[in-house]
């Protein structure tokens, strides 16, 4: 796929998000801010799943670590939040290096389970170490005066998230990204070609962890609080579900998934007391009927429409290819 086709929707989205505070009210800007942070969290996860084929079930650990880095630096040492946000990817990245060193030794379901267990280990430490993290009570964070207005913090988030997603875009198109894709498609072949598979996987794990840390570090000032639930395993399921909803294979898939979930949460929680029920039903429908996600399905439909005049691929081959793509984790 050409880079223009992948970059164009991103630029349109950036322009829309930049114009948003002029078009909608303050509460909607807050919601959009939530979306930006969630989108970065999901995008950092898809570097693992979509690009490298690694299903991590412990990604919330790094998200939560980012949030707590800001909160701890602020409440224990009085460090303002901006240096805190710069420190967050370092802390999350170092932790991802330590955990990744172990988890990349395993594959498939075992990789998922080990990443889940390490994340739960960190969660249990954070939620029970009252004297340091405040335990279940959480830790307060206050942004400085210049970041307190909703719009100011929104533009700050937009800038940070755009830089991070731009970085992910470059990574996807780099030789490093190509190597990850090769490992995803066939780790054995990649190893025969001379790639050190574990080193590449570890590098992806660290980068994804660091970027999840950035997302988390933006989250705690938004809510003015860091909570242990940011690290709980159900939080790790969120980027998995968003990526699935948007589309694993498409670069902007997780962004679309995040938008869907943030909007759904907003709509559902303001109308019923049972948001999980609605989420579950939506995910169920997506898994059963749209395995390629929203973006994947739309792209497939668009390509078929454009290919109609000249049936280049026989329908059977196209069907087989679609099935293969659909079966890829």
């Amino acid at each position, binding site marked *: 796929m050409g880079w223009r086709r992948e970059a164009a929707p991103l630029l349109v989205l950036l322009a829309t998000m930049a114009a948003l505070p002029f078009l909608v009210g303050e509460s909607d800007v807050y919601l959009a801010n939530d979306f930006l942070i969630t989108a970065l969290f999901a995008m950092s996860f898809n570097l693992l799943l979509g690009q490298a084929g690694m*299903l991590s079930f412990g990604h919330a650990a790094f998200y939560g670590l980012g949030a707590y880095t800001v909160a701890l630096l602020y409440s224990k040492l009085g460090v303002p939040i901006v240096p805190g946000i710069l420190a967050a990817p370092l802390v999350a990245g170092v932790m991802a290096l330590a955990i990744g060193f*172990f988890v990349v*030794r*395993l594959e498939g*379901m*075992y990789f*998922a*389970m*080990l990443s*889940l*267990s*390490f994340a*739960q*280990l960190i969660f*249990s*430490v954070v939620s*029970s*170490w*009252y004297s340091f993290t405040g335990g279940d009570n959480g830790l307060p964070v206050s942004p400085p005066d210049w970041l307190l207005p909703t719009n100011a913090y929104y533009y700050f988030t937009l800038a940070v998230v755009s830089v991070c997603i731009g970085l992910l875009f470059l990574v996807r198109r780099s030789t490093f990204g190509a190597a990850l894709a090769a490992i995803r498609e066939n780790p054995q072949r990649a190893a025969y070609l001379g790639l050190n598979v574990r080193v590449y996987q570890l590098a992806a794990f660290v980068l994804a962890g660091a970027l999840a840390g950035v997302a988390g570090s933006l989250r705690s000032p938004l809510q003015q609080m860091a909570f242990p639930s940011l690290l*709980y*395993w*159900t939080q790790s*399921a969120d980027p*998995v*579900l968003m990526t*699935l909803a948007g589309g694993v294979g498409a670069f902007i898939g997780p962004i679309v998934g995040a938008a869907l979930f943030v909007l759904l949460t907003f709509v559902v929680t303001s109308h019923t*007391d*049972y*948001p*999980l*029920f609605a*989420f*579950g*039903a939506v*995910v*169920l429908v997506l*898994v*059963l009927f749209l*395995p390629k996600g929203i973006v994947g399905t739309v792209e497939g439909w668009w390509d078929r429409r454009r290919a109609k005049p000249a049936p280049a691929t026989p329908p059977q081959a196209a069907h087989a290819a679609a099935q293969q793509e*659909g*079966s*890829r*984790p």
Partner: protein
Amino acid sequence: MTDVLIQILSGVSRGMVLFIVASGLTLIFGVLRVANFAHGSFYMVAAFVTYTVTRMAGGGMPGFLASLVIAPLCVAALGAAIEMLLLRRIQHRDHFYQLILTFAITLIVADGVKMIWGRDYRSVPRPQLLEGSISIFGSPFPSYYVLLIVIGLVIALALRLMLERTRFGKTLRAAVADGEMVGALGVNVPLLYTGVFTLGAWLAGLGGALAAPVGSIAIGIDNSIIIESFAVVIIGGVGSVSGALVGALVIGVLQAIGIMVAPRLAIAFIFIALCAVLLLRPQGLLGRRA
């Protein structure tokens, strides 16, 4: 010293409940190759059904026995429906999708339980006969915990006999070892899958019904039991019922000792054990390398 013994024994009784739940999970994982997140939901639903049944029956021994029969059966029916109506439709897709599907079910059930039973904590009384305690070297040990240990052992023995003596059990073991071959040899695979999933759900339900009179029942018990059960399955080895017994006892006792040594970090002990097993012996203590 007796304190430590009593603590270990209560760890064993907790481990037995965990074993009953996790044995179902390990069979499903071993045969269908699905990490069934909904297993925790089965456990939770059974606990709430137990609450309703014992309330309706008045809390005595008959109510307790009735709930032990009814709750696991309800959950088994739920499991059979989920397997036949949902999981089967995406059987041939990547396991990732099946995992997500079972996760979606946990979300739906979590709110479903809230709709039916509300958000309050519930407790189920123990029948009078099991309310007291027995004396072990002069220290009291709840009789209900003795019952849990006995039932755990009975289930372990029954599962072992089923796996070794019956045709279903033999086919099941063959499917754990090599799923494709079992299909090639003419076994009715869809029926086997439904059977295993239903049995697994029944075991989760039995665990939930037995655990109901210990502590209290609340929203969220599904999230904690499923993580502990996954830990048991991984430690013991996927598809191995004896592995699940060993894993459950390790976790039950480790947690009980952890509570004595460092109460707040007791959960951390489980994950340290789990990480150690995954790194040193990824196939689990009693599992075979795939």
